[in-house]
């Protein structure tokens, strides 16, 4: 599903955020990416949806090599990947329904399909009742659920989440994790960067530790922690 081979990333300011990353993530896996701040987690995540390009090496997602992908094809790559952010990235002037529908309008889905898919996914994240509300009328957890709904409405094969619970209180974080579990149970690969030790240690999945731009540990059913 996702393969990284000898991936290096050096930013113009000289910071090396990826220093020879090799990793393989299979279809339907749930992977936590952990590590200290500034270790290269975000770069690792961003390279997967081609917000950043590697300086050297190959990244292959679903058979597409991102290193050689022409920028014109990037939109089509992103349609196969759902992305969830710590700050939700919702459009403040669109209501919940419109925010989710937006992802389908962009790929020119038919209005009928849009209605159906958006209603289904809002039911999945439990926001059917709040479809007409605007982001500023929602709690953080609800906003994150909208953002998740938007990322999966298109039925992507991979969902990439960059600290999705970073701005949420513990109870809400558990709710969000439940939704990710459901999505994963449908066969969607999930890669999640997180700082939440409790979640990683309770809902056991593969843990990849990134430190200094390198993978320092990669364990199935692993626990949180960057040492060793």
């Amino acid at each position, binding site marked *: 599903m996702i393969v990284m081979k000898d991936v290096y990333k050096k930013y113009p300011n000289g910071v090396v955020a990826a220093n020879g990353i090799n990793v393989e993530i299979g279809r339907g896996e749930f992977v936590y990416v952990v590590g200290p701040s500034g270790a290269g987690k975000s770069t690792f995540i961003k390279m997967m949806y081609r*917000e950043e390009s590697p300086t050297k090496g190959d990244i292959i997602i679903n058979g597409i090599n991102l290193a050689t992908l022409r920028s*014109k094809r990037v939109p089509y*790559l*992103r349609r196969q990947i759902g992305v969830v952010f710590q700050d939700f990235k919702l459009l403040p*002037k669109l209501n919940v329904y419109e925010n989710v529908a*937006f992802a389908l309008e*962009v790929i020119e889905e038919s209005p009928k399909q849009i209605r159906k898919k958006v209603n289904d996914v809002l039911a999945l994240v439990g926001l059917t009742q709040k479809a007409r509300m605007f982001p500023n009328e929602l709690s953080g957890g609800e906003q994150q659920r909208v953002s998740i709904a938007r990322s999966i409405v*298109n039925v992507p094969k991979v969902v990439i989440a960059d600290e999705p619970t970073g701005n949420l209180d513990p109870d809400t974080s558990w709710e969000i994790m439940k939704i990710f579990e459901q999505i994963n149970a449908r066969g969607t690969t999930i890669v999640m960067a997180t700082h939440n030790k409790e979640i990683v240690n309770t809902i056991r999945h593969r843990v990849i530790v990134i430190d200094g731009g390198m993978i320092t540990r990669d364990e199935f059913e692993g626990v949180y922690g960057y040492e060793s």
Partner: protein
Amino acid sequence: MKARTMGRHVRESLKSLGRNSWMTFASVSAVTVTLLLVGVFIVIMMNLNQLADNLENDVEIKVITEPAADVEAVKTLEEQVRNTPGVSEVVHATKDEELEKMISSFGDELNLYKQSNPLGDALYVKATDPHKTAEVAQKIDSYDYTYQVVYGEGKIEKLFNVLNMSRNIGMVLILALLFTAMFLISNTIRLTIVARGREIEIMKLVGATNGFVRIPFVLEGVWLGVLGSIIPMAVISFSYYELYSQWQPRLQNELFQLLNATPFILQVNGLLLFMGVFIGVWGSFMSVRKFLRV
């Protein structure tokens, strides 16, 4: 692209005008003010240009024939002048008519000359291209039976120089004004788009192609241009029609004539609309381009 998608773009672009009403107002005002300036300037320049053309076309060559030349000879000369390349019009005035003209300008004392008219016939010649007057005059001068060829030598060259210079200055001013307008408007539009950088970023992240992101903004540029050109078009049309109906009757026999309102104002309006739309589209296009490299 599907027609449905185009419909969506049109709806989105119109909605966005309302959602960003403050920015819309700023951009439309910028377009309005600059187009009004450009429009007024164009109207003035075009009319001055018309005056210049009239002045130029007023230049003529007076060919005085030998007083001794008989009717046949004058006729031959007239024929010869008529066939000279570059000549557009020849008016023949007999020596009696010439004398009448002199009497009316210089007074009745000249009535004495009616018994024996010392003047020759005159031919008033216009050149197809006023700038070639001197050339044509020289050629005519070489024909038989010409006594004198007068065309305001020296003076018309100066006139043409002045007219050309004023035309060039006018063009430069209009271009400078247009350039300023484009800069001002595209900057205002850029601000409105910068404010929506996040929107563009999200569109790109959910897999929108560059074209999909760009089209609503470009359409918005079209609407801004159209909205911004309405007031200048209305003001200029109204004022010019008013001016024309008030002043044109009084200018009946003057060298300076206002341009006919009907085709002229339509042309100016068309130009303003085109400029408004062009500037709007160009401004949007250039500004959104920066955000598409996500």
